[in-house]
């Protein structure tokens, strides 16, 4: 039977927050059983229905829908968490893509297929208009090649820099010519006149060798995740001559480890994950299972090793206050925190940990916490004086009368209602505040709880 602290850690990393009901459901079994339960995501996680006419508002609708899935509406929030992992790795940005519907298509692919098969996932997103536009593959013509997508496919998406040569970039670029879009209708267009169908060599394998030219691009993915070989003149000396599928499996394994664990990836886990990926031909669920069931994932270093990203933090605040995304998600503060959904800063996505920890970013987190604090107080001045939090309500009368002379009990009541356990030092700070504050200031305990450091580590 698993230790409760391990279950809570597992849930925080996979489902954003260790919801008490989920802890109770999983704590009776083993870690492996808990991981299987967490991985048992629904086949159809649904899709946003746009109601706004304006494109940017639709983008907000998509974001709010996604947040609500992460917070309340999914029985297995790992599905949404994993889709955000892919959003940060195989990324596109709303501003350049231009149309909310195209972002929805890509994000939904991550949501529906994010725990399926990597090979299929990458193929699917590579010819969606969002990606064609974001990495300029829609302007990739035989007469004027654009290498942007072909390069990033290897450099940032699947292999890592140094594991291919410029000749490979040129070959892959040729294979990807011909896919474009209609700027007016957002429709995908195959333009055979743009396609460079000449025979090419990619990572030691022949591609563009006849057949359906619309599939030539996909061949590059099959080579990278198949029988490609890291060229002998690649700059990454250690990988020269290795199968690219091994390099890719390790590359993605490290990305997963960083995303879920936060620490420097242990070689043993990466090797085990790689082998699993190869064995199952890049099936994602068993691959991630290796990570989540590894003993290394439960060390103290890993448990203390990750800062909540702004999205994770937003989800945790929504959970603790019981608010829905449409009630209060100040998305406009998120860019300043370092992470706004649909707006990765560049094609390499988001960094982690220290990237989000600085005074300017914290000013935005503080503003966000304030807005949650105020939103929970919406009914405070009404006759009922109600504050709604995750686990129930507290009234103004209770705060101002019942607990008037019980400042410590008020702190614990609010923590219980927000389903938060604070470290002794943070709880002590709240107790001191509660004792010293005027009774009418004590509703600020909700804000202070949202500013507690434990709220901002994962």
């Amino acid at each position, binding site marked *: 039977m698993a230790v409760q602290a391990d279950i809570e850690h597992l849930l925080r990393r996979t489902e954003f927050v260790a919801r008490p009901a989920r802890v109770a459901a999983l704590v009776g079994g083993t870690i492996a059983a808990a991981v299987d339960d967490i991985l048992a995501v629904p086949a159809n996680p649904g899709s946003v229905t746009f109601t706004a006419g304006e494109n940017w508002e639709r983008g907000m609708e998509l974001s709010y829908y996604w947040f609500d899935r992460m917070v309340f509406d999914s029985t297995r929030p790992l599905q949404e968490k994993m889709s955000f992992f892919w959003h940060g790795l195989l990324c596109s940005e709303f501003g350049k893509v231009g149309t909310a519907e195209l972002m929805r298509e890509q994000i939904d692919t991550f949501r529906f297929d994010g725990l399926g098969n990597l090979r299929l996932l990458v193929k699917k997103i590579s010819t969606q208009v969002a990606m064609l536009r974001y990495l*300029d593959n829609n302007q990739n013509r035989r007469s004027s090649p654009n290498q942007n997508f072909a390069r990033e496919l290897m450099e940032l998406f699947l292999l890592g820099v140094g594991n291919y040569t410029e000749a490979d970039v040129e070959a892959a670029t040729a294979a990807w010519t011909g896919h474009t879009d209609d700027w007016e209708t957002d429709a995908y267009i195959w333009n055979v006149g743009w396609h460079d169908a000449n025979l090419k060599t990619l990572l030691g394998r022949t591609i563009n060798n006849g057949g359906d030219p619309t599939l030539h691009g996909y061949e590059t993915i099959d080579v990278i995740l198949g029988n490609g070989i890291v060229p002998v003149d690649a700059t990454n000396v250690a990988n020269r001559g290795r199968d690219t599928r091994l390099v890719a499996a390790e590359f993605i394994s490290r990305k997963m480890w960083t995303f879920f664990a936060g620490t420097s990836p242990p070689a043993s886990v990466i090797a085990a994950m790689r082998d699993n990926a190869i064995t199952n031909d890049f099936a994602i669920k068993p691959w991630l299972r290796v990570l989540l069931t590894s003993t290394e994932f439960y060390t103290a270093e890993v448990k203390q090793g990750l*800062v909540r990203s702004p999205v994770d933090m937003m989800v945790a605040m929504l959970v603790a206050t019981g608010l829905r995304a449409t009630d209060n998600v100040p998305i406009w503060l998120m*860019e300043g925190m370092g992470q706004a959904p649909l707006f990765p800063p560049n094609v*390499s996505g988001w960094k982690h940990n220290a990237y989000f920890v600085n005074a*300017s970013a914290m*000013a935005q987190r503080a503003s966000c916490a304030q807005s949650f604090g105020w939103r929970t107080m919406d009914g405070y001045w009404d006759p009922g004086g109600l504050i709604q939090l995750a686990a129930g309500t507290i009234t103004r009368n209770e705060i101002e009368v019942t607990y008037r002379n019980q400042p410590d009990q008020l702190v614990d009541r609010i923590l219980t209602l927000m389903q938060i356990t604070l*470290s002794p030092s943070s709880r002590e700070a709240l107790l001191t505040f509660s004792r010293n504050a005027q009774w009418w*200031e004590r509703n600020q305990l909700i804000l202070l709880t949202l500013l507690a450091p*434990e709220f901002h580590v994962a």
Partner: protein
Amino acid sequence: MLDTDISTRGALAHLHIGETDSHALDRRRFLQLIGMGAGAGLFSGSSSTLLDMLTPGYDASAWAAGPIGQNDGVLLVIAMYGGNDGLNTVIPFNDGNYYTQHGGLAIPGSQTLALDGNVGLNPALTEMKRFWDIGQLAVVQGIGYENPDLSHFNSMAYWMAGRPNAIASSGWLGRWLDGKLGATKDLYMGAEVGYSVPLHMIGEQQRGTAVPPGRPNFGAGTDPDDLRLYQAVRSMQTSANGPWFGSVSQAFVDQLDMAATLAPVIPEQLPDTDIVARLEVAARLINANLGFRVLTAGYGDFDTHSDQLATHPVQLQELNTALQRFFELLEPAYANRVTVMTFSEFGRTSWDNDGGTDHGTSAPHFVIGANVKGGMYGLQPSLVGLDQWDRMPYHVDFRSYYASILDGWMGGGSSDVLGGNFENLGLFSRGPGVNPDGSSTPIAVTGPPSTFVPLTPERIADTRDGTGGVSVGKLAPGGRIRVRVAGAGGVPETGACAVVVNVTVVEATQAMFATVYPGASALPRTSNINGGPGRPVPNLVVMGVGTDGHIEVYNSHGNSHVLVDVFGYFCETAGDRMVSVTPSRLFDTRTGVGIRPGTLRHLEQVDVQVAGLAGVPASGATAVVMNLTVTQPSAPGFLRMTPTGQTPAQTSNVNFSANDTVPNLVICRLGNGGRITLDSAGESAHALADVFGYFGAEGSRLRTMPPERVLDTRIGLGSSTAPIGPDRTLTLTVGGRARIPADATAVVLNVTATNVAAASFVTVWPNGEAAPATSNLNLVPGQTIANLVICRLGAGGALSIGNQIGTCDVIADALGYFVD
């Protein structure tokens, strides 16, 4: 909590980067960071950089907010988002191709602001033209790069990264910060005035701070309940629960510190136009001398595919207004330390597309500053033979543009920052801080805590007779006199930090103001005396003594004589401290309170008891701070205060004409029996006085500061843009603002009233207390009048300022403050 008083000598000594290394970047650090070659600079492929992001590296002890060094350059970078049409910004008005290709968008040469025989500026850019005319505008033409990318996204990334055609993971200014700071933490070296940090301010290791164009919120409050809340956040700081817990909690503390530091610098009211507001904030950040070396701000949209005739002039007009605002606010001490540069992701097509232009390539950009070598650089790209979709060639690689700034102004290191050697265009005539004669303008500092030594009043300068060695004759418009105070009138030769002088403007030929400021420092944008034809106008001044032992007096308009009387000085040793009291009336000849009733007669001496009255203790007080007002005189004259028992000197405190009501602040030593003797030249004047403080063994010490405007209701500085009047009492927060720390007990302000609607009086008192029955300024419609105020700070470090009848605008210049 960060000491907001960052300009102390101690801080300077401690934080100043020595001249020998302030210009040098740490080359070894660069090799570690970026010298590994990877021209593309890919963090995601580079495990070492990624690991940096995974490892808590937060050094809580090492962050610094320090003033800039004497010869440090400051750079303001303005991004013009969307791709600015260079051809309509710097117009080649002799090129027929321009008129052919730009079609209906082309601007006739006669409308341009001609720079030479070939090019002229867009008519909106009058501020640029002003700088051109004084030789301080460099126009760099034809900036671009090889294989130009026509995507906003890509091209802006290349420009910001400082690396064309490569994936951007860090920016050129961020890498400059890397080189300056290494692993040191400093929130106040680089900032984007905006809501998030753009790529060019993100280094491999360091990143600039985001300073939104608005007052900080969380952390900026000063009420007790705010402070309790912040204290709770601070006390959650611990590293006991793992490294990231420590980093996160420390970052929240940093956030509180930063908000408290920036809140006093950023006014509540900012201009409506976004870029104007951002540049105002930039100027104020520089003036506060928190250590900022690089500031960036951006605006748009310059992406003028259509309707360009309507939109592009507006964008340039906004730039022009923003630059005007910036240079208007920038303190003179920083004028030759600041350079402004512009950039955009690309220019636009030379052919118009029937109303607009499309994404282009090369374009001109501007470099502005006192030490910029004005002129044309680069080359206007030829338009010969360009077809509709052809793009202009480029002549200056944007990295050469950057290298010229880095090497010419920011201390070098361009090859490290840019990953190669690029030509320095030689855009600067001199280095930062250096004047044309080779001297350096000093950066003013706050004086040390000092105590008061009262003197028997004595005239130490008089332009009418040359007293004090000043030239005989009126000051000309813009003229100044240097008054030696060290060694004069009882002030010691060395050790005086500040002097208390009454400065009187006599026989002014037109409405004018005089500004008093420490010697050997830049003329501040403040004023002390508002004079004009008619009676002499005096005002008390408490002013830091310059490093040269002088104070200076500047005459704004017309010609006028200036007299200076000294009443005491402040020094670090052996003087008295001030206790500021709630203002209350000491005497009033109209009522007989504290004095015998009835007007003062010509040459009559009347003793006034001070010790034991109006908050002044019966014993132990050595001098008093009071506002002396003359009212209802029947003839012109002046009033004089002398310590009882001393022989009156040739000085004066209040000058008046018949029927005037005129106040002036007086700091006067107490004479025999704790009394002061009042005498008058001129018949039948009533006199009254309100006490604001006294000096003795206990109390606060004065710290003078470079004169700084903290309130101007005409422009919304320190308040909303509205006069004060019968229905509006203004609360002016000064504690915790600018150079004045939150724990200041009292402040020395020169308060000026203008745009006076009705005869009335202005009262200044500590915030949170009942309005006293006292007055500081007596208002006459049509007159601008100033008076010094030394007032205790009330709740929240604030003062209340009220006006009884009608309305008036109020301006306040801080000259110093008192601390315990």
